[in-house]
């Protein structure tokens, strides 16, 4: 692409409303850097990246699902199922490759279930994924009979805890996912079609876009990314835990919203989501460094989310809008 002047770039940013989230990020960094001497260290940066990876990976595909005008509230449960499958397979003595493949397949199967109901039976995505959220969570418990299952294969746990070329493996995975999804969303016909479907499903259908196929594929991809996230989670903690992933739903969705995607579809960027997930990860990390109690963390995360969307809304003239 041609070179762009700073003004153009900033203009584009303002337009796509990254400003709010970038300001928030900068303020956040300044605040925590002032409050904690450990915040601005390389080591801590790696920590943030390490733990951002799980939500980071899944928020990539959640962004696309949201851009397409759909939603997936079952990612937490999918991650739990994947983690349990990984644990069971690994404990059965299979190597890390088979474990990963099995986990990814489990993720894709979960995604296919959602996709089936949403694109074949044309159920409302919200309702479908509320239902699968419950069912899949039950299945995760069922797989292990409620137990947490330790995974001891060091090659597998390396995915979560190991380092490659100076960076944690899981951070690499997250970065690669963001890059891939950025390319998908900006530079592929598939990606552009997602925006079109989200913006106007009927028009896209009439223009010959295979709406159902793309939606189904999006749920498969989302399942796959839950697979990746589930692998990282169980590799990091060294166990498959049926109840560990419950919060990821909301965190991934919050990252996407902070990143400026419209839940009504047609709008959103992977880069925005990346910024959103960084805000949340740093918030988590900074508050722990400052020993902020966990209730306060809930309150603050909610407030940050509200503040970010409120600022965007007020900038967009919401106060003057009559309805």
């Amino acid at each position, binding site marked *: 692409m041609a070179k762009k002047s700073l003004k153009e770039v900033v203009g584009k940013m303002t337009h796509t409303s990254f400003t709010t989230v970038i300001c928030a990020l900068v303020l956040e960094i300044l605040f925590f850097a002032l409050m904690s001497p450990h915040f601005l260290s390389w080591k801590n940066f790696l920590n943030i990246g390490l733990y951002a990876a799980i939500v980071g990976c899944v928020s990539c595909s959640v962004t696309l699902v949201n851009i397409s005008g759909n939603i997936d509230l079952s990612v937490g449960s999918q991650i739990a199922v994947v983690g349990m499958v990984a644990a069971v397979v690994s404990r059965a003595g299979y190597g890390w490759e088979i474990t990963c493949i099995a986990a990814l397949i489990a993720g894709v199967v979960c995604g296919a279930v959602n996709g089936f109901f949403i694109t074949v039976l044309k159920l409302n995505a919200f309702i479908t994924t509320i239902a699968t959220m419950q069912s899949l969570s039950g299945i995760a418990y069922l797989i292990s009979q409620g137990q947490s299952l330790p995974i001891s294969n060091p090659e597998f746990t390396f995915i979560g805890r190991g380092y490659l070329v100076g960076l944690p493996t899981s951070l690499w995975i997250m970065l690669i996912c963001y890059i891939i999804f950025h390319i998908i969303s900006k530079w592929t016909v598939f990606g552009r079609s997602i925006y079109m479907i989200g913006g*106007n499903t009927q*028009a*896209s259908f*009439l223009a010959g876009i295979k709406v159902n196929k793309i939606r189904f594929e999006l749920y498969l991809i989302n399942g796959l990314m839950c697979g990746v996230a589930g692998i990282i989670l169980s590799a990091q903690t060294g166990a498959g835990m049926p109840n560990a992933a419950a919060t990821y739903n909301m965190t991934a969705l919050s990252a996407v919203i902070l990143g400026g995607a419209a839940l009504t579809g047609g709008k959103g960027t992977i880069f925005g989501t990346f910024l959103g997930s960084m805000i949340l990860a740093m918030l988590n990390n900074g508050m722990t460094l400052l020993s902020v109690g966990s209730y306060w963390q809930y309150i603050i995360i909610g407030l940050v989310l509200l503040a970010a969307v409120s600022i965007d809304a007020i900038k967009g003239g919401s106060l*003057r809008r009559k309805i």
Partner: protein
Amino acid sequence: MAEKYMKNDHIVSDEIVMEAKGICKSFPGVKALSDVDITIHKGEVVALLGENGAGKSTLIKVLSGIYKQEIGTVAMEGKEMNFELPSDATNAGIGVIHQELNYVSTISVAENIFMGNIPKKYGLVDYKTMYRQSKEILSLVGLTIDPKINIGDCSVAQKQLIEIAKVMSNNAKVLILDEPTSALNDIEVGYLFQLIHKAASEGVSIFYISHKLDELFEVADRVVVMRDGCVTGQIDMKEATNDLLISKMVGRELDDMYPKIGGVVGEVALQVENLTTDSLKSVSFEARNGEILGIYGLMGSGHQAIGSALYGQDIVHEGKIRINNKNLIPKTPLDAINAGLAYVPAERKTEGLVLNQSVAVNTMAGYYSKSHKKILNNRLEIEKTKKWVDKFSIKTPTIDTAVESLSGGNQQKVILSRCLELDPDVLILNEPTRGIDVGAKSEIYRILDQLCQEGKCVIIITSEMPELLAMSDKIMVMSDGQKSGFLNKDEATQELVVQYAIGG
């Protein structure tokens, strides 16, 4: 009138390009098409004419693979077609502009043009080519906008033109245009007709649907008239007259399209001084009881903003509004209603009606708001709704039928009922007959005239010149957010109005 359009002088060959036979299609409770036969020749422009709900849109949706007919065949160039998806029809060389605009407001103009057909290079989107080709395509319809901007920032007319450009550029063998001009002004319609003539002379066959009869004389070679899902007649355009078309269409003679008796001019009902909003610059005018004030303007001239500003939709920065000698700047539609205003919005389906609710509920919506009642009154509801259904002969199975299943004209009458139930002093109608068939149109004009006779103050905001000239007692013309002209009925001519409208 004819001089504003290019002459219809292309040659039609005998070669049949598309042929549909015995098409039947029903929806739950409605037989939308029964045994429809239609053919089109190479380079021919066939107009489809019919009342609201006659089945025109349904027919073209069958032809373009959106609906599947229950019985019947569609053949192109002698080969039977079996469209499963709209894209199958596109691939077979059928290009459609639908009645409802089909664009994605959150993406660029270029991507909208290339939707479903994005150019690729090395497997990735080739933005450069896309933007370059978009510029060329846009220039076809005289648009010079930047293809990178979001289509959501374009006006309705621009969107319509973009859609036309997009379909025209696809090298289709058969083009179908379903009411493409309902949002266009005369100049833009001129562009469109040039394009149609050019395409036809290049051998493209065109189905053209419009409720504006005068247009048909400009573009069509042949008119196919539909009524209640059947083809009721085919007329060669050379032999057609206005009256013939109308009588074929509504099944009876329509003696007077624009019944205009007029009322006794009375007090000033509405006085506007220096009204300034985001899109209006210091507009002043007054409207009297017993009179119809017509407001005209080109796209973006602010004529529609007058309606929304008076009705409390827009924020008024400055100015005075006097309704029946009471000063008031309405902040919400309810304020306006309480002050004695009623408003028929331009977009029937998105602004006017709650489609999944019944005729009765829609009719009574304003009444309950204005009367501050808290409890529903079933008996009163039935009584009042029945009164309007009878008075306007609204065609509906029952008053509990959801309005979504009514035809456009009847839907419009429901909105009118809702407004008149408020017993307003001033009635503002924004595009009162957009997309409505001539029969229904004439009925609405009759209602407006009757209101006028009853001494009401009526304001119609319109972009339809014949309607404006025939119905208005006074005409205000808008340009660039300002009042650019004010004419009495007797001095108004089309030329003068257009001259004011383009800012002259």
